[in-house]
């Protein structure tokens, strides 16, 4: 047991969740709901990981070609380098009928709200802004032309209104082309498999301007 508690160490519970055999801990789990629920939650979350082959393919790619995910949220946006300068609610028509969204594109401090098709170039930072007319669970990210998924908003329940993605993406010297997607987790899963999907889409294309 961990010092000062009646429970096994966090490491022991994580080890059991990972399939390691620890008889003392197993015995404890039979009697302790809190620890058993913790191990079950860990085990469930571990199974939801994306395919390892996808990750290894990224590892094999030269580092400079990787896109860096820059996570930001609320009050730390300033520190993360992307200050949201655009104000005001999303246009009302975008709130009608399901989910709609735009991309906040930051280029050297100048920000623009873009929908439909978004031209990007090296150094741009992109943040997703999405609106829902009713409470729903949403996920968002970018599916690149190379079929790489860049998560920007893990599945989460959102209330009616306009929201910003949890993270932004900075475009590195490899450029970025593909589709930004917002939708229910099942819509996103279908879109990632290139199946017909109800996910809202913005196409990302290389900006030819110097």
């Amino acid at each position, binding site marked *: 047991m961990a010092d000062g508690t009646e429970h096994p*160490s*966090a490491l022991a519970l994580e080890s059991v969740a*990972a399939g390691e055999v620890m008889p003392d801990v197993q015995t404890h789990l039979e009697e302790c709901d809190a*620890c058993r629920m913790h191990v079950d939650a860990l085990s469930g979350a571990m199974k939801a*990981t994306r395919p*390892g082959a996808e*990750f290894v393919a990224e590892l094999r790619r030269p580092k400079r070609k990787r896109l860096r995910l820059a996570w930001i949220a609320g009050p*730390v946006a300033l*520190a993360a380098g992307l200050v949201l300068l655009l104000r005001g609610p999303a246009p009302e028509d975008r709130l009608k009928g399901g989910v709609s969204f735009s991309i906040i594109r930051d280029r050297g401090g100048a920000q623009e709200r873009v929908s439909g098709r978004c031209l990007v170039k090296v150094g741009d930072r992109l943040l997703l802004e999405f609106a829902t007319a009713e409470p729903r669970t949403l996920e968002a990210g970018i599916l690149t032309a190379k079929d790489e998924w860049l998560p920007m908003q893990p599945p989460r329940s959102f209330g009616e209104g306009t929201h910003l993605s949890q993270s932004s993406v900075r475009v590195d010297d490899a450029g970025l082309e593909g589709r930004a997607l917002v939708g229910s987790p099942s819509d996103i899963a279908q879109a990632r498999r290139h199946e017909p999907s109800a996910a809202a889409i913005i196409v990302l294309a290389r900006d030819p301007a110097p």
Partner: protein
Amino acid sequence: MSGGLSDTELAMLYEKYSFLLIRRLRVLLRDESLAHDVLHDGFLKLMQSGAALREAQTPLRWLYRVFDNLAIDRLRTRRARGQHEPLDQVAEDRVGPAPSVDVEGRDAVVKLLGELEESDARLAVLVFVDRLTQEEAAGELGLSRVTINKRVKALRMRASAILDGEEMHG
């Protein structure tokens, strides 16, 4: 570490352990993008020289040691550059802490990691993050129980100072 792991082994490791690893790195680094960077770098290290993992009796503990060292190195580098505060918030922990974890104490000690001596940083992780007993930590680090006890007390005092400071400013 000598010799690397194959793509198949890496893919299996990723599927089995990446959730636990990224969750831990979020706690240690308190910075989402840095946590993902260290996860990536750790797997690169395994690709190049992780063959010893095949012989590990407790793979998770072995992996944690590798990734902890990388994380602590990053914290030290950040501190050496004068960047004391993380830039990004971390994603929410979907699972939450284990019942044995004192979250407030853990998070206060974690803020010290970048400035601790290597063995103290390792001790801090074992006792406050992993929640090993002092006896287990002594065995893990090859130190006497008395030494561990003294060092843990010192860590607690420094962590308390942080918590007191936060209360004054909060």
